[in-house]
């Protein structure tokens, strides 16, 4: 056997044990009526679970919530992250200091972030509503209108640093010559940004978008810590739906079907992004 195969053998072995096998098990599970309270009475039901899940209002709603969450969170993070990266790059002093402070949130355990904001924004004991009220602003951060948006804001607080990190690296790696040429030609700030910086950053933006979006699909902790999916089911995300179906209602078959539908959706999403963002070939 060639050495290159020997080198990847441990990884392949490990991943097939802890990922491939569970994945195949999940496929099998999704075709069974598998309840944890009836573990000796598991029945093959074909695609019945998929039929149920695909038409279940709660599932569709959770999927919709997750998509709006991912889209808004990732776009806001992209804009903030890019702006901050550009600003920090211009900074003459304290650059390293500012960077290390601004990157801090992404290393904190999300459950702590969720709980911190649950109490910061809580309408009874939270410090933010308390002072907003002094200025006459009365907002229900976890009420039906704002709850999902609040969760988005929390995600933005925690994960804008990731975007910032990617763009700082991307900006540093850019060659200097085009910028000097632009300055010589007297190009304005905006023109330089839109016609040089942005196109050259495109690969980094795509990678950052994909990594962040796929990660955002996994959002669970904030919902678990704060709203439990409420009010109504306005903040129920797909991960929370699967957690609830599998581990609170003990319906493992349906939970597996839901997670497979999620995987298919994510695959389509990634292929779409990669396809849309491919370099335009000049004919």
């Amino acid at each position, binding site marked *: 056997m060639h050495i290159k195969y020997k080198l990847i053998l441990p990884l392949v072995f490990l991943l097939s044990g802890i990922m491939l096998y569970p994945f195949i098990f999940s496929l099998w599970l999704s075709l069974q009526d598998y309840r944890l*309270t*009836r573990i000796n009475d598991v029945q093959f039901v074909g695609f019945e679970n998929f039929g149920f899940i695909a038409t279940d209002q709660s599932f569709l709603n959770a999927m919709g919530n997750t998509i709006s969450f991912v889209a808004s969170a990732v776009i806001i993070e992209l804009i903030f992250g890019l702006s901050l990266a550009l600003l920090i790059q211009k900074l003459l002093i304290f650059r390293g200091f500012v960077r290390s402070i601004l990157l801090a949130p992404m290393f904190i355990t999300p459950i702590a972030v969720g709980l911190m904001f649950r109490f910061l924004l809580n*309408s*009874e004991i939270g410090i933010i509503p308390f002072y907003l009220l002094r200025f006459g602003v009365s907002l*229900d951060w976890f009420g*039906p209108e704002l709850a999902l948006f609040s969760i988005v804001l929390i995600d933005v607080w925690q994960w804008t640093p990731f975007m910032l990190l990617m763009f700082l690296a991307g900006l540093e790696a850019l060659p200097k010559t085009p910028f000097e040429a632009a300055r010589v030609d007297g190009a304005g700030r905006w023109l330089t940004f839109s016609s040089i910086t942005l196109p050259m950053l495109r690969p980094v933006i795509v990678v950052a978008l994909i990594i962040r979006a796929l990660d955002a699909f996994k959002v669970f902790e904030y919902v678990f810590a704060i709203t439990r999916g*409420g009010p*109504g089911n306005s903040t129920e995300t797909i991960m929370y739906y699967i957690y609830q179906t599998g581990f609170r209602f003990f319906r493992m078959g349906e939970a597996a079907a839901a997670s497979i539908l999620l995987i298919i959706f994510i695959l389509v999403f990634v292929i779409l992004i990669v396809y849309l963002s491919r370099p335009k070939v000049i004919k």
Partner: protein
Amino acid sequence: MKKLKLSTAIAAIAWATISTSQVAHAGEINIIMEEVPDYDIVAKLTDQFTEQNPGITVNFDAMPFDAMRDKILTSSLAPSATYDVIIIDNPWTDEFARAGFLEPLDSLISSQDGYAYDDFVPALADISKVDGSIYGVPYYNYALGLIVRQDIFDSKGLAIPKTIEDYMSVVKSLTTNGMYGAAMQPQKGYKIMEEWKNWLYANGGELFDDAGNVIINNQAAIDALNQYIETHSQAAPPNSANWGFDEALRSVSSGKAATMLSYNWMLPALNAKDGMSGDLAGNFTLHEVPGGKSVLGLWSWGITANSENKDDAWTFISWISSPEVAKQRAIMGGAPVRNSVMNSPEVWEKGYGKAYYTALADILDGSAPLSSGNNAEELIEIVGTELSAAVTGQKSVKEALDAAANGVERAIK
């Protein structure tokens, strides 16, 4: 150096494989508990048990509510139980009994001398009976009562409301100048279900009729939900659509709200000197919920069917729930479940005073469990989600209750 690395690695692997799902050895019982004040009392009392029964070691595993359900499940699915004794929340009783997780206790109870099973409040004891067998004995109740600021009611000359209509008008009249009539808990799921069901009872409604049909979208339910929504919008603090227990309690204890429906045993905590209510301590009183039929919650002691130490498990349960220890537990602040305890002058004197125990006895009399039947946990979550959607205006009352009824039909299968 190499040897050191190797032995470290071996030690690390050994450490990692130590698992707590180890079955209790003979003479040892593992008990899963929820981290609540009543658990602290049980843990303290258990020192006495260990003294009297030196042959039995008791290990508690206390955890938050959220972690309990799947822990009990995995223990029950294993060939031998991790937990010999479990505490069972009332919605889980049927589900766990039907799944074969629980040991019937009938013969153990009847052969236990001086146990006085009939002394348990019947409404509580009945919750643990499934298909004619007893699967648990009461641990503590969390029946809901109406907690009010007596000083406010007195100063305005208001009587304690007996009907839901009275309650609605009283809390509306109390909502003035930064004071709110009712701190409500419309949080999705368990909380709103627990609270709203009192309103449902007051309107004569129920989840199922006698034939077992789902009637959660009948007129009584519609009226109850309309009343609940009206009261929430007119007498509850603003921005409280996602409130649960913590927020409502804080609102009452800090003097911003005049009443709340809550667990009867919150009364002593609210009235405790130097406690959460500060200067307001002593002003709170407990009453039956308006309408007179309370939602009843219960935790009961059970033995897992796959336990290898059932005798020791029963020795512990029969001791901790015996009339004498039950009395001690109540005196230390535990929520009583036995008639003899609630009627004991000694408990009145050393505990929270006669008024509390008689109010509690009234509440328990004629109360009904939060939910019974199969898969009640799922049922509560489904109904509680729809209720919350209606309260926050995402669905109309009719839409929400119809959706709840459909969900319930499916859940209980």
